[in-house]
């Protein structure tokens, strides 16, 4: 029997060759979603709808009329993409019960290819966060918390928790999508990426997370956070799968005027890759305060691998990097304040009981509907947009944004093809540690290496490169030139082949006795 830990392309081949049926694949994914429910990756699981889709895919496969490589492949979608007839909550009370009347363009494209939509995945409320800990459906738990690798390392270090409270966060805000792919409950997932929300959880969950160039993928139906930076993100278990999904999703959409009009040519990545003609930049400012020793070592190793393979690896400077996260903080809050104005209780979503006046109803609805993080960003955004502050904060941030974007332009103009950086400062933090700092502080730490690609609109991909001493994934990021996704993903695939990242050995929730037994066994070893 085929395991679920196949890549999307392997599963696709198995479907095509009749080794497995779409229905069987779907049933097994649904069963595994139940088995791994501790992870809390899904907000909505659509069992009946998914099985119906799978049956239809099987019929097409039997008739030899499969729609393409995605036909019958189980996928998951972050719960901030509109899905017709399927509740879309943004993990907020404000949208609980909201059933969109239409599909987001990227969702429609997946469905048109026969992809089986298993469900909607968990996130931080309105995608505001970097831990997937701040939504109304509770935090997402990193599947690696329940891996043999992490358990064994914890046991070796004598860290056996009494309450099983040593689980680590997934990162965020697309933590549900990352956990779903990482835990083998689906073959690919959609996330969104405003400041790193796809790449951050992908790095912490040991999978590939891709942020396309701004304007390549349609945002129509993605509930907006920061319009000038949001992009749909792709999460898969290998780089080839990302290229495949990208080929299906990319292209101009009349419903999103910010998608570019040039036709997109889908590509597959070569199996033998030559990096010797490549010039890779190492932005020195990405050794930021707080970068873990392990991550530095891994980053160094990857740079050496590229150099040994003949690539030119050179230090470059992006001098405004240290201002980037502050700039992002201001622009994000300002656009959030503007975007969140649509949630007033009148047309959709939560509505309070107050009916003394329209304004009182708005205010009470928003008080009840939004969490502290969302309210905080709305209020600070409103502050930055006040007439007396507009120039001092908002325009100032937009000016700094230009300096940041120009830093990249200068480096790429100097002959550098792409940049190699860490994705996060370190491996994933335990939940109980993570919540000791507030959302803003955490975002400033977690998004430090990722948000600048959003500010400049550049494509970026993170891939899992090694396990840390704690047995948790560490990711590395490549940032490419705008619309050079083929080159970016080709190099990412090359590095993926070199690092040979281990497969998650799912152990599940183990009772305390078993762990202590295992611990004793380990300590008694000579």
């Amino acid at each position, binding site marked *: 029997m085929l395991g679920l830990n196949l890549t999307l392309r392997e599963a696709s081949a198995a479907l095509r060759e009749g080794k497995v049926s779409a229905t069987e694949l779907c049933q097994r994914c649904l069963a595994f979603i139940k088995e791994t429910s501790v992870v809390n990756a899904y907000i909505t699981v659509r069992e009946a709808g998914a099985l119906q889709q799978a049956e239809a895919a099987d019929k097409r496969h039997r008739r030899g009329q499969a729609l393409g490589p995605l036909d019958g492949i189980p996928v998951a979608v972050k719960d901030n993409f509109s899905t017709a007839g399927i509740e879309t909550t943004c993990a907020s009370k404000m949208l609980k019960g909201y059933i969109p009347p239409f599909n987001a363009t990227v969702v429609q494209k997946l469905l048109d290819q026969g992809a089986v939509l298993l469900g909607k995945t968990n996130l931080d409320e309105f995608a505001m966060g970097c831990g997937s800990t701040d939504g109304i459906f509770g935090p997402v738990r990193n599947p690696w918390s329940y891996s043999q690798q992490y358990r064994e390392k914890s046991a070796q270090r004598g860290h056996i928790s009494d309450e099983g409270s040593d689980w680590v966060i997934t990162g965020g805000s697309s933590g549900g999508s990352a956990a779903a792919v990482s835990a083998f409950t689906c073959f690919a997932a959609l996330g969104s990426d405003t400041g790193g929300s796809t790449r951050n959880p992908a790095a912490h969950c040991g999978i590939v997370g891709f942020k396309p160039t701004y304007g390549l993928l349609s945002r129509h139906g993605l509930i907006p956070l920061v319009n000038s930076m949001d992009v749909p993100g792709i999460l898969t278990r290998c780089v080839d799968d990302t290229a495949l999904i990208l080929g299906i999703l990319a292209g101009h959409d*009349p419903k999103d005027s910010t998608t570019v009009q040039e036709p997109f040519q889908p590509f597959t990545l070569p199996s033998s890759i030559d990096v010797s003609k490549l010039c890779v930049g190492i932005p020195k400012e990405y050794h930021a305060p707080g970068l873990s020793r392990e991550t530095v070592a891994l980053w*160094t190793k990857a740079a050496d691998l590229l150099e040994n393979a003949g690539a030119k690896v050179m*230090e470059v400077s992006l001098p405004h990097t240290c201002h980037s996260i502050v700039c992002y903080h201001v622009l994000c809050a300002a656009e959030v304040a503007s975007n969140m104005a649509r949630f007033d209780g009148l047309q959709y979503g939560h509505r309070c009981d107050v009916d003394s*006046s*329209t304004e009182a109803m708005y205010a*009470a609805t928003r008080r009840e509907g939004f969490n502290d993080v969302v309210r905080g960003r709305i*209020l600070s955004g409103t502050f930055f947009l006040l007439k007396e502050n507009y120039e001092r904060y908002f325009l100032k941030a937009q000016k700094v944004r230009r300096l940041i974007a120009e830093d990249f332009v200068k480096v790429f103009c100097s002959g550098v093809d792409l940049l190699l950086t860490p994705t996060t400062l370190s491996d994933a933090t335990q939940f109980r540690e993570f919540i000791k700092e507030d959302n803003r502080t955490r975002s400033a730490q977690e998004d430090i290496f990722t948000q600048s690609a959003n500010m400049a609109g550049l494509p970026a991909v993170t891939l899992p490169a090694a396990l840390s001493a704690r047995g948790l994934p560490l990711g590395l990021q490549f940032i490419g030139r705008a619309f050079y996704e083929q080159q970016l993903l080709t190099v990412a695939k090359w590095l993926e082949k070199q690092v040979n990242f281990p497969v998650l050995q799912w152990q599940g929730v183990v009772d305390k006795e078993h762990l202590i037994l295992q611990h004793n066994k380990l300590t008694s070893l000579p």
Partner: protein
Amino acid sequence: MWTLSCAARLRPYAILRRSLTTSSGSERQGASPGRTCTVPQIPTWQPAQESQLFKKTTVTMEMIDHLEHLALVDFRNQEGVQRLGKAIQFADELHGVDTTGVEPLVSVLEDRCLCLQDDEVVRGSYAELLLANAQQKIEEYFVAPPGNIALAKVNGYKFS
């Protein structure tokens, strides 16, 4: 204002190489001997110190009132007010950046034409679908409470 640490500014190869040779060998397996390391082995900048920050912006009660009215969300408690203070303080670091003569960047696609649709109706008659999510409606109308009533300060949403 962020400052580059002195050590980083000088790129002290001597220090760098010493730290490399003393660090555990396993971390440097990939490098061939004698090659300088491209990846900086120490942080190249440090976060701004409190003292370097600009004058603290004070959040007045009038400001709080004003923001709550504009945003139609409330601070709820003192913690919410403190959160705003910290967010402003964080943003104030931007004032250390020289942006003389720099134009604001509104969109990364600024050098491209925005593709607009022709101004004609291509979709429509979705009234039923669109009304389906409203909590209160009459026929084809969303129902709102009476308008033209200024938000009262004591309607329960105000921070006190």
